[in-house]
């Protein structure tokens, strides 16, 4: 009984903005299925009374002062840009909505 179908993998690829090919989908589906099989055992010991650990280091309240720190120049910021125009990053037309 597979853990994950080819369609689900295609959906994941879409969510992750990866234009995977059909061939890749076939291979990935099998591999992901196998991996999920192996990793699923974590739920065996994940009892309700075990608190999750999100941070290995037990720090809290790390703040900085509200003081300006020198940043990058416009030139530095745009240096790696695939395309730039008028001091801004130029990107192809956006289809989706802002959230």
């Amino acid at each position, binding site marked *: 009984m597979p853990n994950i179908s080819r369609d689900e993998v295609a959906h994941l690829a879409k*969510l992750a*903005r990866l234009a995977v090919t059909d061939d890749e989908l076939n291979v990935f589906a099998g591999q992901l299925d196998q991996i999920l099989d192996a990793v699923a055992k974590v739920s065996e010991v994940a009892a309700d009374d075990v608190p999750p650990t*999100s*941070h290995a*280091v037990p*720090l*809290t*309240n*790390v*703040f*900085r*002062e*509200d*003081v*300006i*720190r020198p*940043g*990058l*120049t*416009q030139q530095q*910021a*745009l240096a790696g840009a695939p395309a730039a*125009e*008028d*001091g*801004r*990053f*130029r*990107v*192809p*037309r*956006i*289809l*989706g*909505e*802002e*959230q």
Partner: protein
Amino acid sequence: MTAVAEVMDYAEVVERFDPVLGLEVHVELNTKTKMFCGCPNEFGGEPNTHVCPTCLGLPGALPVLNGKGVEGAIRIGLALHCEIAEWCRFARKNYFYPDMPKNFQTSQYDEPIAFNGYLDVTLDDGEVVRVQIERAHMEEDTGKSLHVGGATGRIHGAEHSLLDYNRAGVPLIEIVTKPIVGMGERAPEVARAYVTALRDLLLALDVSDVRMDQGSLRCDANVSLMPKGSSEFGTRTETKNVNSFRSVERAVRYEMTRQAAVLVSGGTVTQETRHFQEADGTTSSGRTKETAEDYRYFPEPDLVPIAPAREWVEELRGTLPEMPAARRKRIQTEWSLSAEELRDLFNSGAVDLVEATVAEGAKPNDARSWWVNFLAQEANARETELAALPITPAQVARVAALVDSGELTNKLAREVVKGVLAGEGEPDEVVEKRGLKVVSDDSALLAAVDEALAAQPDIADKIRGGKVQAAGAIVGAVMKATKGQADAKRVRELIIERVGA
């Protein structure tokens, strides 16, 4: 494909349905620097000049939390009577959009820093409504995009877009209400009043510029309808692009009428994001999404948890100024104002000025009258804010004092104020320069009275004949002759005396 949506008559809507509102307000904090880096939190500036590896999302960059941002969040939470979390974390909200450098927003998910509060909102007629606050949490703002090539500069039909990340990472507090129910036909009004009241509160806290027109205060309105008698919430829509208080009211009202028409025609309301159209007050559908966005929230590993010490929270509570609602109550009581007078005072935006004028010694009624009436008119005429008028509360108080002591009549006082506004100096200086003092010297007045009587002999006869009102014409003549600097009452007395003599 944009057919004009059908709407139902408003009266019918509220007869058949109960509206449920949810208001989400985003506030940009006025800290000096961004939320997670030391770049300036400033407007203007050439594009991409207030950026660094962190807010640009460069590979390897890391966030460090701005303590002032946390302080602002806690103060807002306290002002909204919220509980402040003893321990909370940031979370990543994952989705792709070019205005977000990391393609995730560092926000808070199920652990907001403040929760379970309320805001008492006073409607125009004085009724007070308590809006329950679900939460206030910290997050960061996005960059700004310019859409090039389309007709309206909007995203539809654009050929490409230009991104400026100067605003990316600016501290944002999101305030979310619990569902607002039971407002009936007043729902749109309540929505507007809530956002206005929230704005006033935030202004009093001095945490933000709260300008809806500049984007430092943003409101998304969630609206749904329940058929009367039902207790199950209907499907809600979220309306964005609401850029003024009035637009909040209009957007809510329109959505109510639109959704009602849909439901009554047997359709279902689509759960979607809509855009408010300023021009005609309607809302239009956003692009339909195939599936609802799954943000895959998880705790932000690059930031450590925040555990505000209770001592710190109490210290911040001590820094809260008098909140608008409490202030209204106090002013109404102290100055014995009617509900209408209170409303006019607050609507005129003159409260601070009036209070300051009272602090300089003026009577509340006098101070109020000056600012709410004469000076408000002056401000309108000059198309400027009251606070921007070139006259201070101290000066206004001085003028009021001069009227009180009889040295100026109200009419003369207005001349003096005009003189101060014109930059002629302090009130006393203006009085001196313009010679506006009330003529209180009887002999000077008598001379003017005699002259006026001589010029209109038949009036004198009339007065002697018992028609005392006729004296009015002489009073007028004397006032004219003294350029209004006579005490009309005294003039009248003198005329009667003179004629009788």
